[in-house]
Each structure stands twice: as structure tokens, then as C-alpha cells.
């Protein structure tokens, strides 16, 4: 929406709070997958929304707000945390809510799938999570990750096929690593 007048502080506040309400959960969830720690994920989300507030005037198109927030989150994660991340992280299973209503083998499958997602190389896991948590298109994912679309498509393909192979191992795989 070009030519929008500068908002007064009240409108800016409302606009900001609407952004928080709409997106804080997805942003937190993605932040948790990046950091694997509840406290750090909360710090990431706080910093993300603070920076969003400071540069809210630069967001021209509300439709781009979610991708914009995820881009800020990734930048914050890189700044605060990624430098010293160990290669393999011990994954605490705090994310899987206790599901006492499920059959034991269903819970086991969920844990196995969670573990499999966590152990994907981050180059594959992150586009996949952007797709399934953020609901982003290939083009949006490419913009967020600053990759070209073909690379994103290849990584999505590899992420899913690797996961699928672990659970349906006799299925014909088109691409081997």
C-alpha cells in the first residue's frame, strides 16, 4: 500500500500488537526449533519483536509481515547464538506434549519423527520448517534464506525424501546422497 501516511503513535501501537497477536506463536515455534531451548527461544522472540517495533515503518505490505518477522528472527539467532552452536544437539523432548490419549506406538512414532526432523541437516530442516510452520511458498522461503528458488526446492525435496526414507525404507528413492 504505497503512499500510506505516517501513522501516529496510537495506530502504530495497534498495528504492532496486531502483529504480535497474529504471529507470535509461529515465530516462537520456529525460534524454538532454531535454538532447541525454551529460554533462548523466548529471548529470540522478544528481540525479534523489539526490532520489528523499531523498524515497523519499513514494513509496507502487511502480507509480507510474517516473512519479515521470520527474517528478523533468523538474523537474531545468527547474531546471538549460532556462532557457538555444537554440531549435534542433545534434544530434550520437552516439545512433545504428553499425549496420554494416544496408543503407545503412536507416541513412539511421534518421538521418532521428532527426532528424525531434529537430526536433519539444518540446510534441509530449516526450509522444511519454514514451509510447515510458516506456511511459506518456495519464493518466500528463498527470500527469507537468501537462496535461489531452485536451491530451496532441492532442499525441500531432500528434507522430505530423507524423512520418508527413514519411515518407509523400501520406497524407491529418486535421489541418493
Amino acid at each position, binding site marked *: 500500500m504505497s503512499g500510506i501516511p505516517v501513522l501516529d503513535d496510537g495506530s502504530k501501537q495497534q498495528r*504492532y*500488537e496486531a502483529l*504480535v*497477536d497474529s504471529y*507470535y*506463536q509461529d515465530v*516462537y*515455534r520456529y525460534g*524454538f*526449533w532454531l535454538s532447541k*531451548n*525454551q*529460554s*533462548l527461544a*523466548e*529471548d529470540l*522472540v*522478544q528481540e525479534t*519483536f*523489539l526490532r520489528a*517495533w*523499531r523498524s515497523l515503518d519499513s514494513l509496507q505490505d502487511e502480507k509480507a509481515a510474517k516473512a519479515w518477522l521470520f527474517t528478523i528472527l533468523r538474523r537474531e539467532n545468527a547474531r*546471538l547464538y549460532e*556462532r*557457538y*552452536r*555444537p554440531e549435534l544437539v542433545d534434544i530434550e523432548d520437552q*516439545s*512433545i*506434549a504428553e499425549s496420554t490419549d494416544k496408543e503407545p506406538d503412536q507416541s513412539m*512414532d*511421534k518421538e521418532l*519423527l*521428532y527426532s528424525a*526432523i531434529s537430526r536433519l541437516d539444518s540446510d534441509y530442516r530449516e526450509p*522444511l*520448517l519454514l*514451509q*510447515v*510452520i510458516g506456511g511459506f511458498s*518456495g519464493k518466500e522461503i528463498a527470500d527469507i534464506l537468501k537462496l535461489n528458488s531452485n536451491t530451496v*526446492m532441492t532442499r*525441500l*525435496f531432500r528434507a*522430505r*525424501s530423507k*524423512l*520418508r526414507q527413514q*519411515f*518407509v525404507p523400501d520406497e524407491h528413492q*529418486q535421489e541418493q546422497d
Partner: protein
Amino acid sequence: MDEIEFRRRAYTNPFDADADFVDAVESNSEYKSWLQELQAFDAQITDIANEIPIPEGLAERIKYRQKKEPGSMNLSPRRYLAIAASVIIAVGATVSLTLYNSRPTAEDIAFGDVVLQHLYAEAAFLDSNFDVNFQQANQVMEVIGAKFDDNTTIRNLIIKFANDCLVIPLNESVHFIVEGSNGPVTFIIINNNPVSTEFNLDDGRFSGKVIPIENGNLVIVGEKDEPLERFRNLINENVEWVI
């Protein structure tokens, strides 16, 4: 659509709505059946990815934090609600002063408050255990134009976290967390104007010192009762200014 292309498209996005993909699926019962299984699997991935529980009150804390943000030098620590500390720090954390030869100025005290606030904001990093090595530590020290001496004292230091720091956004600073005898010890070195005199920071949970040094300020903070002198000596004796 040949099978290779079909599978490539399906794995990239099992819910691809492009007309050519949809037509290929509708016109081939094997593709359709295979895709339905893949979509069911993908639904499980989506469920798992989105099952991360959201901490209670998160939206309120995000909004609260922003309301405190613009230009404010407030004294309430950012995430005290979320910190599992045994002491709740009230708004307006007080700084207890030990009188030295001269009293810290109001500006010095305000700086101490900012540092404390920053510590609470980054309290999550106190649990870090990144096993930072000597080379990595010195890469961080480059930010402030300093370096650690290469000796056994520094090599034996257990550094759990090291990064540049934004405690004072316009000044370069570094933030280290090392293992102390009572828990983690934070030291922050900031290239800003040195405070007029050394003074303590004590707020019931943390025990620390702000120390003017050659190129700025050294802040050392540990858990209550942590002996801090050895860390002051460690920095004084093993850090060299390169610039």
C-alpha cells in the same frame, strides 16, 4: 508427467496446487494413491513441527517489553517473570554502594543499572555450555581491540559463552561467561567512557563490580557470594590491548 518429475514435485510440496501437478495426479491412480500416503506423512511432520507448546503469557510479555522500550531507561529487568530465580527483583532494582575514596556519580549508577538490566535480559545464557576455546575467545576479543595472553591460566579457563554484546548499542563490548566457584561468572568489557570510580552491583541475586579500566569498563558479576577478585586479577593480568 513422468514419474521422476512427479515425485520431485510431490516431495518438494505434497500440496502443490499447480494445474499440471494436479492434472497428473487426477489422471493417474497410482500417483494419487502414493501422494495421499505422502500427504498423510506430511501432516504428521506438520503436527510435530507445530506441537511446540507456547509458554504461558508470552504475548503479554512481548507487548510489555515493547511498552518499556522507546527511549526508556527503566530499571525493571526484561524477563524477570520467566527467570527461575529464588529472588523476585522488584521494579527499580537498587544498587548497593560500597564507598571508596570517591562516590560513583549518578551517571555511573545509571550505567550499573543498565548493565544489571542487560544481565537479566540475557540470563538464559548463564546456562550455556559452549566450551569456547582460546582461539574463539580471542576472535571475540578482537571486537574490543584486545586479546588474551596465551598462557595456562587462560587456556585452563572454562569459558561457557563468548560473544559480542549490545549492552550499550553505540559502543563495542564483549560478553563472556566462565565457570566460577558459586556458579557462572559474567564479565563484560565495554569500550565506553570509564566510570569515575569502582563500585559494586548487588541486588540479592547477583554480586558484581564495575571497574574502570584503560579503554573502558570491566564488569564482573557472579552469583551472590562469588569471590570476584580472582577474575579481576585474571583480566588485569592476562588481557592486552592491541589497538
